[in-house]
């Protein structure tokens, strides 16, 4: 059953961050990928008890550090200075990625170039000749959490869908994404097929037509 939010425009990335934040269960351990997903942190109420993991070796990450609070020894995975919350802990990279790969994180939210209806994700490399490949922790994150969500605009600037039958960009992970949050709608994806949970500023029928994914 799809909920259609038709009394409004499609979501801004900040509104989308709030929508994702509402879906994160209390007390979860969460990794927010570089880029748009970082914004989700601003919408997590403190009393929800969500603990943020940053793969460069920390649990209990607080908000971005400003001015005097900036410490060169305390950054997030995007190398942005951050702060430490009470109950934080530090660990080395092998332990940090063991934590991720071992399935200890509840949710990871990743930005994406493309997500396939099968749950494949492409977010590390455009594949364009001359582009320097740089994967960082993307592939580890993609397979690491119990629930991997993608957060992206649904269409490219030129209007091409980024939710696709099969990714054309080099893959980051196979069948690992279970939900895709976009400005126009929220989708379930994976091996058992795709479902449309919500639409924003567009009807289900219009969205299906525009994506060309259903017949």
């Amino acid at each position, binding site marked *: 059953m799809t909920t259609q939010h038709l009394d409004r425009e499609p979501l801004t990335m900040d509104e989308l961050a709030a929508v994702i934040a509402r879906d994160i269960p209390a007390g979860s*351990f969460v990794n927010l990928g570089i880029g748009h997903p970082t914004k989700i942190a601003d919408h997590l109420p403190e009393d929800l008890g969500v*603990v943020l993991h940053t793969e460069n070796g920390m*649990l209990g990450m607080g908000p971005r550090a400003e001015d005097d609070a900036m410490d060169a020894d305390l950054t997030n995975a995007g190398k942005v200075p951050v702060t430490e919350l009470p109950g934080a802990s530090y660990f080395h990279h092998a332990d940090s990625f*063991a934590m991720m790969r*071992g*399935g*200890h*994180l509840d949710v990871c939210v990743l930005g994406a170039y493309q997500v396939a209806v099968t749950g494949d994700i492409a977010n590390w490399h455009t594949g364009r000749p001359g582009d320097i490949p740089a994967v960082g922790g993307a592939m580890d994150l993609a397979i*690491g959490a119990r629930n991997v969500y993608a957060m992206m605009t649904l269409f490219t600037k030129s209007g091409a869908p980024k939710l696709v039958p099969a990714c054309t960009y080099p893959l980051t992970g196979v069948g690992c994404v279970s939900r895709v949050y976009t400005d126009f709608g929220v989708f379930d994806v994976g091996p058992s097929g795709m479902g449309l949970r919500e639409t924003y500023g567009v009807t289900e029928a219009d969205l299906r037509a525009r994506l060309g994914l259903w017949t």
Partner: protein
Amino acid sequence: MARATVLGTTDEAVAGIEDGSTVLVGGFGLAGMPFDLIDALIRQGAGDLTVVANNAGNGEVGLAALLKAGRVRKMICSFPRQADSYVFDGLYRAGKVELEVVPQGNLAERMRAAGAGIGGFYCPTAVGTPLAENKEVRRIDGRDYLLEYPIRGDYALISADKADPVGNLVYRKTARNFGPVMATAATTTIVQVNEVVELGDLDPDSVITPGIHVDRIVQAETRHYTVQGTR
């Protein structure tokens, strides 16, 4: 993995452990053994357990008491036979408990692999020995290795020195032993601690087990300072 919960009693801490579970039990001999949790597990009643631990109990306390209560179907351990392992020895000789012997370092590394999402690893330990039987051998860079698989637990019962309310742990001296590894390898990790401290009281740089690996915390009822052989 919701955040850790601090419970009031060891009975609450071990609630729900099912018959037939695989339970990782911390400790090296008596050092780091979660006595109170094991006593609670005996009261709780779960049986037909597979227990993974370094030893197979000392005297009649802790793991030996669990064995004596007839709750253990199989022991996976590195060093069952000790001067005071008579409870296990008797059960084993009577055919009442199965035994799988695993080299100590492999026991630790296989649990680490389970916690770290590693599907298997090539290890040089035990190559050419009876413990290599039925294991795949692979030559890498001129050296032989055995393929070892992860050991996962449904539950881990461990002890630590201090916990904060979100489950961060620090340990004392060699009582640390298997605790940090077992905490990562079990679906549900239950910890008895000497002390539950306030949030913010542990130095984040000195935390040994981050709270993400801990599910239930309980303050130990008695602090065990008994040295093996002097009990």
